């Protein structure tokens, strides 16, 4: 890979010496280069070219979780420097609230939690459980899981034009836990907060804190480690996955794994306090009786470092020494720079990229106290980043795919209920009284949406936040040489089309029926059309649709098909008339609304069946 990692040259030499299969070795090594095509501008110098809507979209694609028009609007009058400043602002992670009240009444909440009541949309994560031993369902069951999951979806959905939530995903993939299965809701919540709060902080501090985070202590068994037989699980992954990477690029030894296991034995968490008690603090404990007080000896990779064994609570300090030792290696900065590049720019690396991009980024990371954002600011402003081989060259992850759709049509904050009663169409926009309180309640929709995104689409599309497939994260984000192609297979492509159809064409199904037919929540066409410039002009409308939904220039047929879908037997001036009857008069005309809504649904379907729809 990089020339800096001499290992590689050794490897080749080794294979030549042993005279085994050097051809395929070379092939394997070269393969990486073949998967990244024609990257030019291998320079981190500030980009000085045009910074128009296309470049802004590219920047937003790679820094937002799901592009949508409101982010573009935020950059409308900004230059590149100003845009970067805007994007590197911290966002917020709202406290999860009760959105499950249509399923569980106040009485039931009173039985469960030590409080008078848990009202609609009230925060309730920090409340203690009333009973000392809640059942499994009570610990892990619905209302808190949904609340926490929604607070993440909500954060992404309503994200400011800020890189914060994308960094959250970066950390969740790089240092994952299968949060909910470990320490109940609070454990999961603590873990997510920890990730969120460290996005703009030192990665080194993050690693220190995540090591003794309750869900991580559980996930990789550190809390069970015994000094006679220390558990190696965390000791291995902290090196291999979280800080210095896999051999042969990084040469920590099996002995290093064992010695770190010895240095960290004794850390555990207060399960009962975290799970049952008031508050949501992560409460690690260091049990001195279970610590290995002998000296720990490390390999030459760590400069033959010795960490002296310490008695009593001082033993807890060995964690800081371990972290210090790991972060002093060059490999740590190279590894993190590499992971940042792969996540934000392109996953396939070449020797040249290692040399001209990764190494300088690694230096910025080190020089800025292991900051993730400082190297990113340079990278995302660079000539290299605005390379048209990079633009629209990645396949959206499922969360980016689904969120960009929901955000674009603003289905959560501004939906319209729809019902077909067998003879007539009913829209809540025209007949608010036709619909009941439950279906009108936004929180009810949030709860339903969370369920669908998690347990249907999350699983079926291959990415459920809070449940990465392994401690390595999602294969599409690390497994070479396939990388993002992993998101697309015969099963997921079908589900992607289904999701697109659900939200863009038919509307999200609410699990509520009037008569035989269910109620759907659809986009609000009035406000949606108003987000376009001059939607009355069909050609301009089509241009804007394509720009919003498609990565890069589409094949020419798409424009033609969109025209067909939208006009569908009416002419351009009729289109203008219909649109103006929706957006230019006090109360929109229902028949125009229904007619244009149907056409727009068909147009979305045209866009959703293109390959470009999946790229960003």
């Amino acid at each position: 890979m990089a020339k800096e990692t001499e290992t590689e040259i050794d490897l080749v030499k080794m294979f030549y010496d042993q005279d085994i299969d050097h051809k395929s070795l070379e092939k394997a090594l070269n393969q990486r280069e073949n998967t990244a095509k024609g990257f030019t501008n291998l320079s981190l110098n500030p980009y000085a070219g045009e910074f128009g809507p296309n470049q802004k979209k590219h920047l937003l694609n790679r820094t937002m979780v799901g592009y949508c028009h409101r982010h573009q609007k935020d950059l409308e009058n900004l230059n590149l420097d100003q845009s970067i400043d805007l994007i590197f602002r911290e966002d917020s992670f709202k406290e999860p609230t009760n959105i499950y009240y249509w399923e569980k009444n106040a009485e039931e909440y009173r039985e469960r939690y030590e409080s008078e009541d848990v009202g609609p949309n009230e925060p309730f994560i920090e409340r203690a459980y009333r009973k000392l031993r809640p059942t499994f369902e009570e610990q892990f069951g619905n209302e808190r899981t949904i609340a926490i999951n929604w607070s993440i979806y909500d954060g992404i959905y309503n994200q400011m034009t800020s890189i914060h939530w994308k960094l959250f995903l970066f950390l969740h993939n790089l240092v994952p836990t299968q949060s909910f299965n470990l320490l109940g809701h609070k454990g999961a919540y603590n873990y997510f907060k920890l990730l969120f709060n460290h996005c703009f902080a030192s990665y080194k501090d993050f690693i220190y804190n995540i090591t003794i985070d309750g869900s991580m202590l559980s996930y990789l068994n550190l809390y069970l480690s015994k000094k006679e037989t220390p558990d190696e699980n965390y000791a291995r992954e902290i090196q291999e996955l979280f800080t210095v990477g896999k051999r042969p690029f990084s040469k920590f030894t099996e002995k290093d794994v064992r010695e770190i296991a010895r240095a960290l034995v004794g850390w555990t968490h207060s399960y009962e306090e975290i799970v049952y008690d008031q508050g949501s603090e992560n409460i690690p404990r260091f049990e001195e009786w279970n610590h290995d007080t002998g000296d720990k000896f490390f390999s030459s990779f760590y400069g033959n470092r010795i960490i002296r064994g310490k008695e009593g609570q001082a033993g807890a300090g060995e964690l800081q020494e371990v972290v210090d030792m790991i972060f002093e290696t060059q490999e740590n900065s190279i590894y993190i720079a590499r992971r940042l590049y792969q996540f934000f720019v392109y996953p396939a690396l070449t020797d040249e990229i290692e040399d001209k991009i990764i190494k300088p980024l690694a230096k910025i990371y080190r020089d800025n106290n292991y900051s993730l954002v400082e190297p990113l600011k340079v990278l995302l402003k660079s000539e290299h980043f605005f390379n048209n081989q990079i633009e629209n060259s990645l396949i959206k992850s499922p969360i980016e795919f689904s969120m960009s759709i929901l955000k674009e049509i603003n289905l959560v904050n501004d939906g319209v209920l729809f019902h077909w009663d067998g003879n007539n169409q009913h829209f809540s926009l025209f007949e608010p009284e036709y619909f009941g309180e439950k279906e009108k309640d936004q929180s009810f929709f949030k709860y339903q949406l969370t369920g669908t995104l998690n347990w249907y689409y999350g699983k079926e599309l291959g990415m459920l936040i809070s449940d990465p497939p392994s401690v390595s994260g999602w294969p599409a984000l690390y497994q070479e040489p396939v990388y993002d192609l992993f998101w697309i297979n015969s099963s997921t492509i079908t589900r992607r089309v289904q999701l697109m159809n659900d939200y863009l064409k038919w509307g999200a199904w609410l699990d509520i029926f009037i008569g035989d037919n269910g109620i759907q929540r659809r986009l609000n066409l009035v406000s949606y059309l108003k987000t376009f410039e001059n939607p009355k002009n069909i050609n301009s409308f089509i241009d804007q649709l394509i720009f919003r939904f498609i990565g890069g220039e589409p094949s020419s047929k798409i424009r033609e098909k969109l025209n067909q879908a939208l006009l569908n037997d009416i002419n351009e001036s009729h289109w203008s008339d219909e649109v103006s009857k929706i957006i230019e008069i006090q109360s929109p005309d229902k028949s125009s609304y229904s007619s244009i809504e149907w056409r727009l649904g068909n147009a979305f379907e045209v866009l959703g069946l293109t390959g470009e729809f999946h790229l960003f």
Partner: protein
Amino acid sequence: MKRRDFLHDLSHIGVASLFANDLVFGLELQNNNSYLSNTLYPGKILVLVKLNGGNDGLNTVIPKNQLSNLSNARPHVFIPENKIIDLGNKDLGLHPELTGFKSLFDEQRLKIIQNVGYETPDFSHFRSMDIWESASDYNKFVTSGWMGRYIENKHPEYPNSYPNTQYPDPLSVELGSPSLLLTGKKSFTSFVARNPEDFREIITDFDNIYDTSSNRGTKLDYIQLVGKQSNLYGARIKETYDSGVCNFDYSPSDLGSQFEKITKLISGGLNTRIYLAELGGFDTHDTQVDQSDHTKGAHSTLLKTLDNSVLKFMQNMDDIGRSDDVLVMTYSEFGRTIASNGSLGTDHGTAAPLFVFGNKVDSTILGNNPVIPSNVQWQDNLETEFDFRQVYSSIMNQWLTVNPTTEQDVLFKKFDQIPIIQAKYIDTDGDGVSDDRDQCNSTPLGAMVNTDGCEIFSLPAENYSIQTNGVSCAGKTNGQISISIQNTEYTYGLSIAESESTYTLNSENGHQLVIDDLEIGTYTLNFTVEGKQGYVQTFEIGITEPPALSAKSSVNQKGKTMTLKLSGSDLYYAEVNGERRSYQLDTFTLQLRAGMNTVRISTPQDCQGVHTEKVFISEQVKHYPNPVRSNLNLVIPGEDTKASIEIFSRSGSLVSRYEESIPFSRVVTINTSRLTGDVYVVKVNGQTVDQTFKVIKR
């Protein structure tokens, strides 16, 4: 000749009236070519079972001669002697949950290979699983899987132009998420069939050509290909799954449900030869066993699931008569430490036993019992006796088939084979007919064989180039057939039944022949090859009058047009519903109206004939929603006032029929609430409407 070449070539034959007689082969053409062979033999199946997390081999196959050392080394997880299932062989026992394995062992359908691993073991799950799945050396990073490379070696063109008529089915099927194992050098070689029962056709017109020299083009090309394959493979998966049976129920578990799917796919006739199932949870660092009863706990539950799944699978295969054709192999990234840890678990270890199941396995236990040191240290690990790639190589050579490049492509070098399949079942010449049935056991690779394993001599149909000149006019006898043969190493005989004449084509006449003075009629040409008994290649050739008017039409229902491609003349008359125009073009488009249209094409020469066509142009019915829960709305444009609507089930039977008048809104609503959830075909008929479409009922 390989059948796939033959079929492939059919589409390229240049002589219009030629067809190859499939009787030549004595084989049924519709029988899909076996993927691993070229015979009628239905083909062997390999099912791989991945045990994720590192299975504790020492608690799975237990060396009974080491019990006292074992109990010292792993006091936290040790299984008491009286609970171990005795194999009565080599002092080996099985975990108490493996009763199914025991019975398969007694039936000589289980092969145990001890101490399988690799040199310089890696203790990382991911790295070690990568090594197992990529079949790489410990210090080499290979980014494709051995099974993916195996499939690519067999199908060098994949994924382009797959599926096709020879290989309509996925080359491999995964029941979990896509793995490195089936990742080839170019693409995934597997179809992920997580929900075979729930296939939905995605309507795409992905038919674009992308610039694959760019990253973006590469991605688009890939997405388009997966979209297409997903439609085609998905339909096959659903079709076979729906018609498949599973008479021996699996106990409820994720692995059980994966095996149930495999069972149904195989019994439903899916011609896929490689399956991958997956069971996770073997990373038992803690609470591997219950403290009070070491025969219970997480590991025991996993083994019970595995045991049940394999046993029921073999019973199901017995049930449908395919158990001779299946081989099941387990693998895991590593075993676990000899010593147990204080959390009632074990840590990442090294070598472990591997299981192979099948009617044809050589069921001798292979390898020595692992040796447990009397004073075990925490970091002590088991020695590797067999490299895992010896198992791969043996399975490829003894069960699958190989060609001269396979081993190099797949495993990068040669490994010593170990006996996995009984010698008499091995198929040495790789023709798909095992040695015990193979009467010609040295068939050249790639040769087409019959069920006795003997080569069928054949030549590609395109070997014969045949051209005809028709008679100049009806009644004349100046027709001509010209023949030229490509492969000149043989002497060919030719007999024409109709004229009772025979000819020879050899180097003397340059393998060329012209037969003159023929009258109008059909001639049957039978080619034979000297010294190749039984070989006949038959063509039927027609000597005809001057070309008749020929017309190909295609109708665009949406645009209400008909496009004609004509030949036979320079000038054509086209009459649409009585209105006549003339065209000096070969190709032109006519405007039609909704309802019935009559199109009549003629030329100035009456003898060239007339082409008449009646075309019904339907108004385009739109329907929503789809899937439908209850009310299905049909938007029927045009001016018809009535329409009949028929709903047919998947099997084609009429479910309901409505006569509806079409209101001014042109929306007709049909209540489908009494239909059960399935796919239905809806037919709408009227004076100017004739439309059929599918709806999904939820």
